[in-house]
């Protein structure tokens, strides 16, 4: 165990009645890390974050943040944390700048300091031109950016982001990713949850894949990919008239592990290239040859069936 743990959880458990929503989870997050929680809907990601913030009483286990117990020190912990919640809770009665100013007062920040800090944050979020507009008049992406910089008002050491980019267009996602990387460069610790494998792959040094409240595996995106899936994938999509046994035979020849989701077959192998000429000769098939990624790991670990 390293000494610089920002968050340390041991046997962390949350039950609602008999339902274990977070089930004996252990993890440690270190200063300067970008740490990700990855899991399908209902995996227990938000619940874990809520426990970290003291918004959800812990059923069992221990949880410390900055070395302080969440059970007794939640408020002094939150003084040093910034939070972007899964659903925006901006104040609709205030303008963009007032949202930052009023939120700053909750941390006891002096007006003079706020006056200096708010323009910086507006620039960081690229929202300078919208300073005097109310949230209702902002696009979804602008709201999210405002929520993001509002979480930075107290210059937090730890920033907690619950699905920060869900529902945003690619430009805004890239902007936010850039900002997150900048924050980690400045030595901030980041904890984020996401459904986007690409996001986790780009941002996280380390991540946990969880489902049904349990940790399925953990490690760096690269290590996880290496551990769970072959290096390459050939995705074959059926546009009518695919011969199932032909695909099976083909992948067996190439030594592929074959998976099926909907009308697509995934052939995992360390050398999927050898199959391409044969697939190309079938005009009713389209294919995509790519390196495997976290998505493949995720689907392998959490299963391919739909959640509700």
């Amino acid at each position, binding site marked *: 165990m390293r000494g610089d743990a920002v968050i340390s959880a041991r046997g962390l458990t949350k039950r609602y009645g008999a339902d274990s929503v977070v089930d004996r989870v252990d993890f440690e997050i270190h200063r300067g890390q970008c740490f990700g929680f990855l899991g399908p809907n209902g995996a227990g990601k938000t619940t874990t974050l809520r426990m970290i913030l003291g918004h959800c009483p812990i059923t069992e286990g221990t949880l410390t943040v900055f070395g302080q117990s969440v059970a007794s020190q939640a408020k002094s912990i939150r003084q040093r944390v910034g939070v972007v919640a899964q659903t925006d809770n901006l104040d609709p009665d205030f303008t963009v700048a007032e949202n930052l100013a009023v939120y700053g007062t*909750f941390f006891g920040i002096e007006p003079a300091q706020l006056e200096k800090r708010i323009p910086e944050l507006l620039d960081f979020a690229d929202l300078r031109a919208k300073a005097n507009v109310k949230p209702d008049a902002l696009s979804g992406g602008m709201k999210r950016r405002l929520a993001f910089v509002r979480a930075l008002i107290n210059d937090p050491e730890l920033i907690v982001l619950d699905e920060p980019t869900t529902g945003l267009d690619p430009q805004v996602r890239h902007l936010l990713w850039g900002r997150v990387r900048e924050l980690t460069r400045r030595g901030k610790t980041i904890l984020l949850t996401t459904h986007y494998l690409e996001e986790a792959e780009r941002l996280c040094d380390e991540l946990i894949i969880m489902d049904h409240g349990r940790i399925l595996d953990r490690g760096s995106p690269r290590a996880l990919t290496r551990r769970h899936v072959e290096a390459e994938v050939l995705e074959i999509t059926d546009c009518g008239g695919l011969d199932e046994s032909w695909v099976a035979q083909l992948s067996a020849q190439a030594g592929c592990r074959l998976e099926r989701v909907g009308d697509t077959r995934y052939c995992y192998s360390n050398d999927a290239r050898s199959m391409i000429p044969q697939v190309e000769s079938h005009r009713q098939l389209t294919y995509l040859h790519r390196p495997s990624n976290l998505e493949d790991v995720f689907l392998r670990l959490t299963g391919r069936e739909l959640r509700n």
Partner: protein
Amino acid sequence: MALDLRVPRLRSAAILVLKRNIKVWRKLIGPALLMNFGEPTFYLLGLGFGLGAYIGQMSDMPYLTFLASGIIASSAMNTASFEGMYSVFTRMDQQGTYDAMLAAPLDCDDIIAGEMLWCATKSLISGVAIVVVAGLLGAIGGWQLLWLIPVLFLVGLCFAGPAIVMSALSPSYDFFTYYFTLVITPMFILCGVFYPTDTLPQALQSFTQILPLTHAVALVRPLAAGGEPGGVVLHLAVLAAYALVGFYLAVVLVRRRLIR
């Protein structure tokens, strides 16, 4: 799940919540004050003069004075109740304002204490508006009116707690109709706003003694009419008891709703 029954702590952070609400209110100050002054003006002009012409004196004072002093108290009740239900529910449930506050170093104790102070402030504003209108109409006057400031604030606290309890229990806005129909309206009718309670049947009179508005009216009316209230300790104690018990229950129930 077990309720968090710990006694709430009062901290200065509650003022931050109060200030946030004042800041919103100041943005809408025009319509807000128009409401505060407009409604009682019509009440006093219409009922005070209209009914007053038939009634003349009531409890040894002009009916306009009697009515104005009753409306000052009931308006404090209504204002705190509205704010504690519709506005608090909007912030707690619809806007996620409390979620955002809870992500900062505030807790449910601070939020509810701040909301109660705000409800009481609004009660005071609405009461003072009526004092001004009634004063201009010549119905009330005198330096003893200044005592109404702390009294109306306390009346606001007294009704804020139960209203926030309703918010914490409520699944939706519809729920508040029950409280208004079954609690607020009966008090408005029964507690001496429009006529002295000693004209009611004995059983009903005893019942009104447990209702806080009765005690609010008992303090406000003599102060407004230029007299001296009797039984001050009892009346203050009843109002304070509702305020304290209401605060405690409101905090426990809001914790149950938000910290789970």
